[in-house]
């Protein structure tokens, strides 16, 4: 199938929000996150012949975004430690203290655990889809998600986990 301009407009409106959030939690910079999402859709439109069915559209967009992020990361390594958590934007009407704590917990997770967790929680991708993105099997994805939530859970219950370096 060829994506029409009409379909594409709907895709942008349907998926730009979650892709922006995913991009933000990957780079923790709103400006960069917006650039990443804009570039993702620009590339998606140019490469629309490569889309095999609308059911594959979300994993396809995530794949493009991850590639864009990887390119960005090569140019500009980002460090969690350099970020001030107090500068993170807060959603209206939420529990600010709880959100702050959860965001700290997320930032403490190593990328190999954080990324599949973001894909599942924000994007609703299945373990198989996440595995295809990361180049690992479904069982390995489940293991990473389990470990990510266990680490979050320990923090949730007031325990501490050792701070990891990015990329470990």
């Amino acid at each position, binding site marked *: 199938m060829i994506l029409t301009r009409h379909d594409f407009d709907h895709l942008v*409106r349907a998926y730009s929000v*979650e892709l922006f959030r995913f991009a933000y939690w990957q780079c923790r910079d709103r400006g960069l996150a917006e650039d990443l999402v804009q570039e993702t859709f620009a590339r998606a439109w140019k490469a629309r012949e490569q889309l095999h069915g609308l059911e594959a559209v979300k994993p396809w967009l995530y794949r493009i975004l991850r590639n864009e992020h990887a390119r960005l990361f090569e140019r500009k390594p980002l460090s969690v430690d350099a970020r001030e958590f107090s500068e993170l934007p807060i*959603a209206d009407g939420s529990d600010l203290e709880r959100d702050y704590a959860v965001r700290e917990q997320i930032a403490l997770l190593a990328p190999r655990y954080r990324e599949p967790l973001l894909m599942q929680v*924000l994007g609703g991708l299945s373990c198989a889809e996440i595995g295809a993105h990361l180049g690992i099997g479904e069982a390995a994805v489940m293991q990473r998600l389990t470990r990510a939530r266990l680490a979050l*859970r320990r923090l949730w219950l007031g325990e501490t986990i050792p701070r990891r370096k990015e990329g470990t």
Partner: protein
Amino acid sequence: MNCLEFRRLALANPQHPGPAALEHEAACPDCARFFMDLRRQEEALYQALSIPVPEGLADRILLKTRPHRLDWLAAPRFWLPALAAALVLALGLNLMVPHGLTSEALAAGIIAHVRHEPQALAAEQSVPWPKLVRAFARSGGDLTSEPALVSYAGRCLLPGGGQGEHIVLKTPQGKVTLILMPGKPVAAALRLFKDGLNVSVLPAGKGSLALVAESNTLVRDAEADLLRAVRWHGRA
């Protein structure tokens, strides 16, 4: 399945641990408590990750991907007057759009609405095709094919006032509630997990639509089915 296996599956995917895990949960009070707490943690996680999105993001993306955008953007004498006109129009429209619920409140209201209408989900009606076509037409959509089997269709009162269409789609994987909400525009798509239900609110036709189901996969599949089956017109 033992408790250890259940917890492993639940931690890997709290939204879809699988039928065997859910069977275990129903029979094991300890695991049921663990699961409930895990789902609360998951909801807090989603809320914390849902940071505000820059105003007009989707419009800027669409602008960027328009054909010949570079020629157009390179000539401020063309886009400056257009921008000014768009701002005036946007301000005017803003005055006309009914100031009601925020998107988040609308999504939460839809979940409560679905919870309060269990008979719609339980119904097994045979809904005539013309009735469905009319329901979508009232909301600014042309139904070109049936998105799934429909087991219920009726009018309903929407959160914050106004009437909408309450439709239940019956798929092999389970039922999904579709609420068509003409007159309730949203700026962008929004997803929310609350009270054990996933809701996705999307701009559509004369307003917006909401898809609600326990399973997030069902909601996502229904989004794709609707995209194929309906051609939406712009806001009325």
